[in-house]
């Protein structure tokens, strides 16, 4: 065990890519740290600025300033080759999309506050790409990546659910007229339509913008090569986007009055933001990516950014930082805005963790499949498997194929139609419940979904039953049906148990029940389930008739029936047996899967009937106790009706001799005994493998002068009459045992034999006679 793991560690860690030691890269890391701190500062400031400056104006100023500085540094027009007309169109597209993304990002900033924006929006491409590959492809890259993705999702959920940001309530009270522009108004209404608070809407918006950003930057890589470098593209694109935004800004400033008192006071902060957020970050990032490799710089960058964001968020409202803040504001509500909460802290921790996990280089070498060992004993791996496995069929085709398969057979078709009906009813119920805000309906809808899982299981089993036999499933998949019946039986037992416990707790303390909504829903459920019962009971008789048609079953069907009758008169639970048998006359070992599904539907029907009865009793007489008593009764009924199913399935799974063939097999074995030349038999094993396979093995000892094949023929015929249709007969003569003892002679056997021989001299003569 240890050896295995240590060798794994060697192959995984030491033989992977070699990282440059940190000491040589310290200056880059420090540079990265400084840049990220400045960037965090810039984002915090821009949040303050955005309170006064309109978002479109803000983005325009940023782009313009950025373009001016980059034109000065980069000289995109004077250096490099000429930009063709076709490329200008591409740059225009690039610029439009990038300005949309930055608009979205800054709008998210106004919604969520700077810290949350930092946490959500500022992830590098490496992180997001590996996150998406874990989520949407099967080849994620091992458990560590999965963990990273889970952390990321948990962090987002933390921000969504556990971050009760007080300010958001205030923001939500915004009068509609407050919104400055058509853009923000549209976004606000969009978020309000989703029915979430502004802050949560901001979180969702930022996550979407992040994905968009990553897709965009990946896509624009090709364009940057075409133009001649990412920096040149960046300069040109920001220039073009400033030009694109210019008409909007002029229209805006003409139509709305500005809240800004003096633009001159804002010059310094704007310069600071442009420098830190747009210019410095871009350059340092490109340098660090070159020097440190992308994953590492992504890891360090995000950690620094998040930590400095946390620090700033803690001290932003502190008086000490007032000098830092360019905008001296009348501090009325500023202190309560987007404060640090526990949820944010937790999610920041999770984000840092997930970024460091997701950005670590994946060890591709571990994914190879072991082919074998080289002559020297070194394991050989096959790394090609990944590339070759991508020939899976497309989703629509898969759905079409499986639908066709489902509709081919009677059983699966029945289940499928009923499942559709059930799901439709469930969704109507759920929608109506959401619409009318009725919790009872919603919870009943979820209950129905829970029940549907049993149907889905039955459907799968009915599909799998028809699969061809494989090397592993050498008898075919017929037994899946029985296993599914067993699981469905257990499912019903669990349901009965929960209903039982619930009704007992209600018996002690009957709650008040609102009967208004209950009756129509339960009537609807009853109708749906009655349809199901009709369909499945038809299926039952269908299956039974099919079973009795096939030759040998016919003669013995009355056996099983009489047997059942016997159980009836003796059983202490007559009516439940009646349920089990009335629909399956003589068919004990038939389709367990369909029986399970049928019982499920039956239980649901009973539930609906119980609800209707108790509703009537409660509304007419006010007997609150009727409800728990009804459910108690139903639970018992379900429990008792499941027992026969479970019992039969267990018998099959435990390889018991099929009870309906017991007598015949017994007679058949007696007959076998009487076949000419047969001395005796041993190890008779007979068991039901699936609904229509009864398998058996038996060893026969015959006299030496009898032809084996004849005996096999006779025995096969006799046992086939008894219902065994997959038989293996081993015919042994005396010679066989002699051969066996000769073949298996080892030292110990020889020793034992010589000892036995000495003690049993008497029998020697007998053998000699033969």
């Amino acid at each position, binding site marked *: 065990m240890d050896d295995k*793991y240590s060798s*794994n*560690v060697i192959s995984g860690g030491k033989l992977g890519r070699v990282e440059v030691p940190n000491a040589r890269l310290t200056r880059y890391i420090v540079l990265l740290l400084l840049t990220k701190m400045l960037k965090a500062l810039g984002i915090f400031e821009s949040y303050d600025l955005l309170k006064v400056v309109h978002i479109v104006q803000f983005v325009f100023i940023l782009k313009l300033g950025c373009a001016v500085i980059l034109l000065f540094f980069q000289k995109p027009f004077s250096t490099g080759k000429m930009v063709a007309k076709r490329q200008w169109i591409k740059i225009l597209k690039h610029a439009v999309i990038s300005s949309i993304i930055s608009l979205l990002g800054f709008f998210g900033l106004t919604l969520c506050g700077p810290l949350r924006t930092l946490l959500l929006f500022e992830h590098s491409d490496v992180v997001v790409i590996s996150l998406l590959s874990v989520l949407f492809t099967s080849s994620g890259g091992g458990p560590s990546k999965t*963990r990273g993705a889970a952390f990321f999702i948990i962090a987002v959920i933390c921000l969504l*659910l*556990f971050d009760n940001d007080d300010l958001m309530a205030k923001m939500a009270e915004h009068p509609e007229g407050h919104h400055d522009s058509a853009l923000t108004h549209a976004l606000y209404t969009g978020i309000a339509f989703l029915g979430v608070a502004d802050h949560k809407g901001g979180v969702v918006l930022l996550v979407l913008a992040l994905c968009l950003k990553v897709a965009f930057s990946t896509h624009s890589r090709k364009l940057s090569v075409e133009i001649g470098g990412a920096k040149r593209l960046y300069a040109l694109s920001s220039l073009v986007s400033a030009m694109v935004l210019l008409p909007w800004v002029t229209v805006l400033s003409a139509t709305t009055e500005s809240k800004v008192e003096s633009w001159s006071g804002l010059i310094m902060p704007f310069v600071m933001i442009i420098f830190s957020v747009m210019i410095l970050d871009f350059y340092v990032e490109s340098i660090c990516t070159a020097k440190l490799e992308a994953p590492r710089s992504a890891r360090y960058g995000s950690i620094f950014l998040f930590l400095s964001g946390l620090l700033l968020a803690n001290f932003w409202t502190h008086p000490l930082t007032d000098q830092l803040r360019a905008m001296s504001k009348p501090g009325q509500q500023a202190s309560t805005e987007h404060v640090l909460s526990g949820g944010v802290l937790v999610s920041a921790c999770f984000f840092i963790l997930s970024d460091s996990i997701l950005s670590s280089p994946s060890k591709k070498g571990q994914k190879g499949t072991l082919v074998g060992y080289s002559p020297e004993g070194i394991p050989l791996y096959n790394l090609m498997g990944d590339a070759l496995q991508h020939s899976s069929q497309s989703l629509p085709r898969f759905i079409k194929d499986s639908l066709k398969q489902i509709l081919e057979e009677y059983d699966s078709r029945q289940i499928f139609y009923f499942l559709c009906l059930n799901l439709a009813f469930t969704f109507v119920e759920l929608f109506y419940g959401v619409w009318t805000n009725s919790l009872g309906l919603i919870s009943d809808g979820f*209950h129905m979904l829970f029940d549907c899982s049993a149907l889905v299981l039955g459907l799968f089993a009915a599909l799998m039953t028809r699969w061809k036999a494989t*090397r*592993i*499933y050498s008898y075919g998949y017929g*037994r899946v049906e029985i*296993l599914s019946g067993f699981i469905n039986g*257990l499912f019903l037992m*669990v349901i009965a148990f929960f209903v039982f416990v619930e009704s007992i707790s209600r018996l002690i303390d009957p709650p008040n029940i609102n009967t208004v909504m209950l009756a129509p829903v339960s009537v609807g459920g009853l109708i749906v389930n009655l349809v199901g019962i009709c369909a499945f009971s038809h299926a039952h008789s269908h299956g039974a008739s099919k079973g009795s048609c096939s030759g040998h079953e016919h003669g013995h069907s009355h056996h099983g029936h009489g047997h059942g009758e016997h159980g009836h008169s*003796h059983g202490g639970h007559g009516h439940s047996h009646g349920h089990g048998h009335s629909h399956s006359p003589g068919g004990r070992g038939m389709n367990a899967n369909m029986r399970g599904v049928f019982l499920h539907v039956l239980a649901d029907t009973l539930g609906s009937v119980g609800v209707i009865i108790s509703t009537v009793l409660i509304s007419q007489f006010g007997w609150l106790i009727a409800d728990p008593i009804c459910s108690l009764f139903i639970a018992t009924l379900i429990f008792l009706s499941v027992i026969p199913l479970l019992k039969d399935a*267990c*018998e099959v*799974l*435990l*390889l018991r*001799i099929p009870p309906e063939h*017991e*007598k015949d097999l017994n007679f058949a074995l*007696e007959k076998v*005994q009487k076949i000419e030349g047969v001395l*005796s038999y041993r*190890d*008779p*094993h007979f068991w039901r493998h699936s609904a229509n396979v009864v398998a058996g*093995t038996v*060893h026969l000892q015959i*006299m030496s*002068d009898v032809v084996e*094949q004849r005996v*096999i023929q006779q025995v*096969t015929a006799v046992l086939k009459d008894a219902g065994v249709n*997959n*038989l*293996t*007969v*081993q*015919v042994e003569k*005396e*010679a066989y*045992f*002699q*051969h*066996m*003892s*000769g*073949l*298996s002679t080892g030292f110990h056997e020889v020793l034992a034999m010589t000892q*036995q021989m000495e003690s*049993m001299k008497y*029998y*020697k003569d*007998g*053998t*000699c*006679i033969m």
Partner: protein
Amino acid sequence: MVAVDVINFQDSDTPLHRKKQETDTYVLWSGPPWTLTEQGTIHPFRKTHKSFLGKFVQEFNLVASDRRSWKILLFGVMNVICTACLLMWCNSTNSMALTAYTYLTIFDLFSLITCLMSSWVTMKKPSQLFSFGFERFEVLAVFASTVLVQLGALFILKESVERFVEQPEVHTGRLLVGTFVALFFNLLTLLSVKNKPFVYVSEAASTSWLQEHVADLSRSLCGIVPALSSFLLPRMNPFVLINLAGAFALGITYMLIEINNYNAVDTASAVAIALMTFGTMYPMSVYSGKVLLQTTPSHVIGQLDKLLREVSTLDGVLEVRNEHFWTVGFGSLAGSVHVRIRRDANEQMVLAHVTNRLHTLVSTLTVQIFKDDWTRPSLVSGVLPAATLSASDYGGASGFLPPASSKQAEELDPLTSTPTKPSSPPPEFAFNTPGKNIQPVVLPSTHQHRPYNLGGGLGVGAGLGMGARLPSVQGYRTSFSAAPHRYGSNLLPSQTSQYRP
């Protein structure tokens, strides 16, 4: 289970003795159908309830007579008390996460029952109704308990979804106490009761995702602190793992509810515990379910293929088909196989060799040998016994009965109960004319199956003397040929009883 030793050597006895034995067995077999043995053995599903209870009590007494099961019973009682306490606390705290954790305690109860059942199984001998023995009860118990826990987890998931819609308040009073009590009892039960079936399954099944993540984490941890490797690197026990993880989740829940009153954490950690339960139990239920489905275990397929290839290269074997191999309980393999042989091959010889090859791996084996077109009289079988050196070697085969020609047409078909594979080659030696059957004299010394030729050149003279072709027979000559009577004689009367029920 394969009775390799001499089982039945009545032929060597005096005819009188043999007759007596035969009647003896006959009486046993033809007794009232199944009832004779049923009194001695118990099967859990009786037709009437009263006897079921009676049987149950009887079986229970049988199990309880063993000292070792007292401990299990004691733990079971403790577990029931603990579970009842926990369920009460679940009700009073109104916590979903604690309920999910309590289900793990209930699972421990199931595993104790499974443990009892496995000790019961070891006491039972195969009966006539359950001819493969009772090992399967163990497998079924494991499967049922894992599936039940997963269904419980499904129920938790459903309840949690309902709770997300409307989150009730959770009281933390007994939450931490309940967690620690449950953790303590679970770990105590896990570590002090030796639960054979679950230990086996948890080792044989594939790793759960929880185990994988912990292994990954601990591997990277061992990169930093190598001293921990002996403790962390071996495969973790999944049950201990899920108990610890669940307790951890509950601890976090308690903390967050106490500090910030985040009631939704309770639901979230209930979902987490339910998912972990799924992850832990799913591989085990898949493993035991595959045993129940009578599948060939994938880890023995390589070995089996090798053995079957060996079998198909034996002299006289034409093809091997209808091979079914599956596990009876946890471990022991059972199987049946049909072997088609050449018309002139010796059936008993091939049977012995096939059995000898396979029974190293497959303990309950049945081999059906069949020939195509066997009804045609063959010259070989008629002269066969005379060819051997000692008459008792293949004794008795001289009395070959000519087949009844009226039967042969319809009886040929049921010979192979399952349809033959389409790929099966046509029989090599199914000649229509008996004249073709006689081949030129083959000297036995030229045959290529050296390893089986243990008897040396014993058959040479005979083969030449008869002028018939006997290469396969000679090739299989086993080492005992010198003293057939020796092995014939070592039959104890008691040994014959093993094929009585």
